């Protein structure tokens, strides 16, 4: 057992922490949010120059070949800075899907450019009625001459407006399972309706009306994407736990500082026991979330198994519960100032809660873990 970062990981952590601190102050973030792109192309360029965009991508495709631990290190700092770029959905989730399902040609075409930061990916796997179940979708792919025709509507494709390629899930007519297609968003008939999410990042809805995709743009076999989607969502969940952890640490720090300085009834409010115990409770949740984030990072790249799924599901559950508790109590302990748009704490609270709306909230994962529950002598419910 060793819970320390190695020297290289520590350097990575220091590098990105410094970059985020220097370029992602709260006022700068607000300016990025209000800009045309809704994020910072300059920050992305710096991530690329420092090689950070390449971290999760395999060495065979010009990546750094980092593990779940490297992803954790990066995401924690992006979370602390409330960064708006879709690093997780592009470099970890999207690139992971291409790497796992793609042919060598497809990987070669896409991944080196992603690693370099020259193009981004976005995954279109949620629909109005799917509610985190990637297999419960209505989008359809109909075979046609030399390819497929896609019809359907995807919701909340994070980073979808800035993505060079969209990875779109659909059922192929006449086949079981879920298929995954590479879609150029500039293809004829694709409409994107962009908007910011409640916690800041840009997303879009995707309308697909008889869109033609080439035969080459199917990732993997027809109907063969589901296990990769589950596996890569596991990696994404691990990374997202780290993103939440970075934000939780910052929300906790801001609250702690506030309690020490805010005066009421003639003394700092840190003197009130009810607030002291609330801080202790928050610290407890933070501790559990830290532990599960580390566990998730360490199993994220293990081969798929019931054990891996249980651990990642538990990590997401514990982190989601901790995120909401810390978000709500951080606002409560700040009082009115915690309710204002102009104070960073409020945006951490929003990020912490809205992160639970991606890849499944605590209830979804409670159900998931229930189904996977290991009861000796009995088959699980999955």
């Amino acid at each position, binding site marked *: *057992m*060793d*819970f*320390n*970062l*190695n020297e290289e*990981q520590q350097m990575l952590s220091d590098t990105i922490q410094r970059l985020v601190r220097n370029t992602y102050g709260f006022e700068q973030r607000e300016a990025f949010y209000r800009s045309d792109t809704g994020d910072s192309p300059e920050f992305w360029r710096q991530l690329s120059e420092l090689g950070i965009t390449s971290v999760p991508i395999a060495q065979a495709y010009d990546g750094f070949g980092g593990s779940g*631990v490297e992803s954790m290190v990066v995401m924690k700092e992006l979370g602390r800075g409330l960064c708006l770029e879709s690093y997780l959905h592009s470099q970890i989730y999207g690139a992971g899907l291409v790497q796992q399902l793609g042919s060598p040609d497809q990987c070669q075409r896409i991944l080196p450019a992603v690693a370099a930061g020259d193009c981004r990916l976005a995954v279109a796997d949620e629909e109005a009625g799917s509610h985190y179940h990637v297999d419960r979708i209505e989008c359809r792919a109909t075979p046609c001459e030399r390819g497929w025709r896609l019809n359907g509507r995807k919701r909340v494709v994070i980073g979808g407006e800035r993505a060079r390629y969209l990875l779109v899930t659909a059922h192929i007519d006449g086949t079981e399972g879920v298929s995954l297609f590479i879609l150029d968003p500039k293809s004829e008939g694709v409409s994107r309706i962009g908007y910011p999410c409640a916690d800041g990042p840009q997303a879009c809805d995707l309308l697909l009306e008889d869109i033609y995709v080439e035969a080459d743009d199917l990732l993997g076999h027809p109907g063969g994407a589901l296990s990769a989607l589950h596996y890569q969502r596991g990696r994404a969940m691990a990374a997202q736990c780290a993103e939440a952890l970075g934000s939780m640490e910052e929300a906790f720090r801001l609250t*702690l500082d506030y*309690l*020490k300085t805010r005066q009421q009834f003639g003394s700092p409010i*840190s*003197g009130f*026991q009810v607030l*002291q*115990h609330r*801080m*202790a*409770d928050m*610290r*407890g949740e933070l*501790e*559990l*979330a*830290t*532990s*599960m984030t*580390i*566990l998730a*990072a*360490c*199993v994220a790249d293990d081969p798929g198994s019931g054990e891996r799924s249980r*651990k990642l*599901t*538990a990590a997401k*559950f*514990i982190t989601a519960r901790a995120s909401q508790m810390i978000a709500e109590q951080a606002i409560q302990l700040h009082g009115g100032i915690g309710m204002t748009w102009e104070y960073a704490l409020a945006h951490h609270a929003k990020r912490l809660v809205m992160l639970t709306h991606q890849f499944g909230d605590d209830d979804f994962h*409670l*159900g998931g*873990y*229930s189904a996977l*529950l290991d*009861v*000796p*002598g*009995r088959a699980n*419910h999955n």
Partner: protein
Amino acid sequence: MDIHFTPEEQAFRDEVRAFLTSELPADIASRVRLGRRLTKDDHLHWQRILNRRGWYAVNWPEAYGGTGWTVVQKHIFEEECAAFGAPRIISFGVNMVAPVIIRFGSEAQKSWYLPRILSGEDWWCQGYSEPGAGSDLAGLKTRAERDGDHYVVNGQKTWTTLGQHANRIFCLVRTDTSARKQEGISFLLIDMDSPGITVRPIITLDGEHEVNEVFFDNVRVPVGNLVGEENRGWTCAKYLLTHERTGQAGIGLSKAALAHLKDIAARERNGGGMLVDDPLFRARIAEVEMRLMAVEMSTLRILAATRDGGVPGAESSLLKIQGSEIRQAISDLTRKALGPNALPFLEEELNPGFDDFPLYRNYSAAPASQYFNLRKLSIYGGSNEIQKNIIAKRLLEL
């Protein structure tokens, strides 16, 4: 980063398992698993088996007959013992007074008391809490006045666990009433058969005789039974409390209790089907298992940090809170799993001889009592509220 045990640690786990498989008496393990009563002889029997193997005094330095195990090995040992249903180690002698004697005691005290703890000749109990000194331990009033070569002790101790079995008690007593609260306290070793000592049972809400009141009426204690310096007993007390707090997360016990809960849920019917298939109850088990996984990871992180020379701060208080809450949550679900079958309170069913004639199932008698008994977890060893004070004090630099 690496969350795995080393091959050496895995091998150690196998060794512990092999030992428990061959040495732990099946009747004792069954009583532990089903929450039945254990006799003093059950405890002593298991202690002797452990001592024969050299695995009783796991926390002592090797020079005194300890194991020299790392904190990780100790954790593995505790986890496996709990999983196999070994009786818990009664800590007062081997894990509480002994470390204090080793750290602060005289050579004479070490050579007299330590071997008697190992052999089981001495059964120690703890004289800390008083009617007026619980969480505010330093408010204790039991007096020890010097009279020649003796201290004369007067006062009352309470919540003395298994004092009815003990032939010795270690006490915090007030030797200077004029000093500040913590500064007039001394650490005394007292023979329970001294004239003037009376032990009275306190029956707890589950009907058990586990704790006692101990009265001291002009009890004469040789000056040689003072550990460390007079009026410096608080140092010993604090040292001992840190020993008491480590391992309080009780991960092994929770895991064993959770396995028992799943077993019951898989055997209890719920109207038509089995309880474990009821979505709500299954989700409740799932939730507590996930929380336990998180607390276990936190424990491993602290163990690794301690192994590498770190001193746990607020973390050990957090673990005490979270570990006790989880054990209570599991005992809550275990009671609920039985539905109406948890209602009958037939004390005889908890006795060893009742094994063959259970009124319902052999596991159904204990859960309600155990649930009430385990309310103590969030009270003793520094109540969970005291732990939160400790955490907040560090966080807020109060």
